[in-house]
């Protein structure tokens, strides 16, 4: 479904992503793990066309490297950005409405909204509240719900566990699993390698802008290099 070949991202003259290649098949959940500054966010932003990049990005068989960011959701590519990126001065309901922005006139929006509220009841309770006043966990839920309202077939998730208490992390990941079970393909970026590899079926390890390991999640979890570098052993 997604095929990336030789992706490079530069900030000024400095390379953050140095020619990586990987693929995600339809229906998969794939984890991309790595330390701070490894280039994970840069990779996702390049996929969502929020950053210029070199190399090929094929999505559903189509080259999207030249497609502007705002067209991608219409093609089924959604993203929950790092740090959630909720619109702080818009209400929860308005944030969710923004999620459905690309589906103008779609009669199924209301049904989808009801489903999101059902899956994330906190959002319903607080739907008139400004998003900026939500707790971190609630904001993460909102970012997720908002992305789902775009009806993506493929979802990029950037560190959904960041800054959340363990209980909240668990809740967020349960939601992610439910989304995956509903048939959405997911590329999950996480620093919490254990959690990511327990959730995903396959994984890539990124170091210094390169992919250094690629394997099934189970094998990566058992790999001594991964255990030493990312699982604190």
């Amino acid at each position: 479904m997604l095929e990336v070949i030789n992706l490079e991202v530069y900030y000024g003259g400095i390379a953050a992503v140095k020619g990586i290649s990987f693929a995600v098949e339809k229906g998969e959940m794939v984890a991309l793990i790595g330390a701070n500054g490894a280039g994970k966010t840069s990779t996702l932003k390049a996929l969502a066309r929020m950053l210029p990049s070199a190399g090929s990005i094929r999505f559903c068989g189509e080259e999207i490297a030249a497609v502007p960011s705002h067209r991608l959701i219409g093609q089924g590519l959604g993203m929950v950005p790092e740090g959630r990126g909720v619109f702080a001065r818009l209400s929860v309901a308005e944030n969710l409405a923004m999620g459905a922005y690309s589906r103008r006139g779609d009669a199924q929006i209301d049904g989808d909204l009801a489903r999101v509220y059902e899956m994330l009841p906190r959002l319903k309770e607080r739907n008139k509240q400004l998003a900026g006043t939500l707790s971190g966990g609630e904001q993460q839920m909102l970012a997720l719900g908002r992305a789902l309202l775009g009806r993506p077939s493929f979802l990029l998730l950037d560190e959904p566990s960041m800054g959340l208490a363990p209980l909240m992390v668990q809740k967020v990941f349960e939601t992610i699993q439910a989304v995956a079970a509903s048939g959405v393909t997911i590329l999950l970026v996480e620093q919490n390698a254990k959690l990511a590899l327990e959730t995903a079926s396959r994984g890539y390890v990124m170091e210094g802008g390169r992919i250094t390991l690629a394997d099934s999640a189970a094998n990566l979890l058992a790999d001594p290099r991964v255990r030493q570098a990312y699982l604190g052993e």
Partner: protein
Amino acid sequence: MDTFLQQIFNGLTLGSIYALVALGYTMVYGIMGLVNFAHGEVVMIGALTALAVIKPLAAAGLPGPLAVLGGIAVAIPVAMLLGFCIERIAYRPLRNAPRLAPLITAIGVSIVLQQLAMIIWGRNYHSFPPLMPATVREFGGAQITDLQIIIVIVAGAMMVGLLLLVNVTRLGRAMRATAENPQIAGLMGVDANRIISLTFVIGSALAAVAGVMVAANYGIAHYNMGFILGLKAFTAAVLGGIGNLAGAMLGGILLGIIESLGAGYIGDLTGGFMGSDYQDVFAFFVLIVVLIFRPSGLMGEKVSERA
């Protein structure tokens, strides 16, 4: 005659006009953190375009208010097109340039538009024919004309319309989302360039109407009327808290009233040393005071950093 009430009426009229123009500054600033100093020239072009249509219409025997409506109907699309082009030509290529660059092109655009207007309409003052009802009404010892009442009502209606557009509609929601974070709004499918163009176009439409109001209120229009007016409207936007729509409205009205009261009393206060021709001083005095004591404006948020 009651000077105080009289100056409040005059200030309200003037303030409504400032508010319409200030909205253009504040909308653009809110969305892209840019002060569009060429906005005053859009007001001027709007006024002169309308006048160019109104005169022949009136000469052809059309009733005054209809001729004025005809002028506005032409001035609005002309101003919208102008606003669209200003953004495309002067600002879009500099979207990622240092902040000083678009400020300099803004001044450049201002000069170009003024010169262009001078070539088209000449250096002379054009008198705005007295086509609007000038019936004078008495209220508590002060006088107010029908024209003033119309200006306040039309400006008020346009402001309510804008608030509804921004706060209630799908487009307005996308505008607010883009103002907060264009990249993330993009992920939802919002084309930030389109939203920015629309912002310029809407602000320019308000400016055109404001231009006609100024011309009708003072009875004249000329190629450099946009400069001082633009500065004052910018002051109003800063006073209210730049980037904040309600702030621009409040700032505009307040500035109009401060200015009118100032002009009404300055003669008495200085023993006749300064006259009402010092009216313009007040706006800039207000600007300086706001910048020193409350740079975020009356309704602005403390942090005005772009996301």
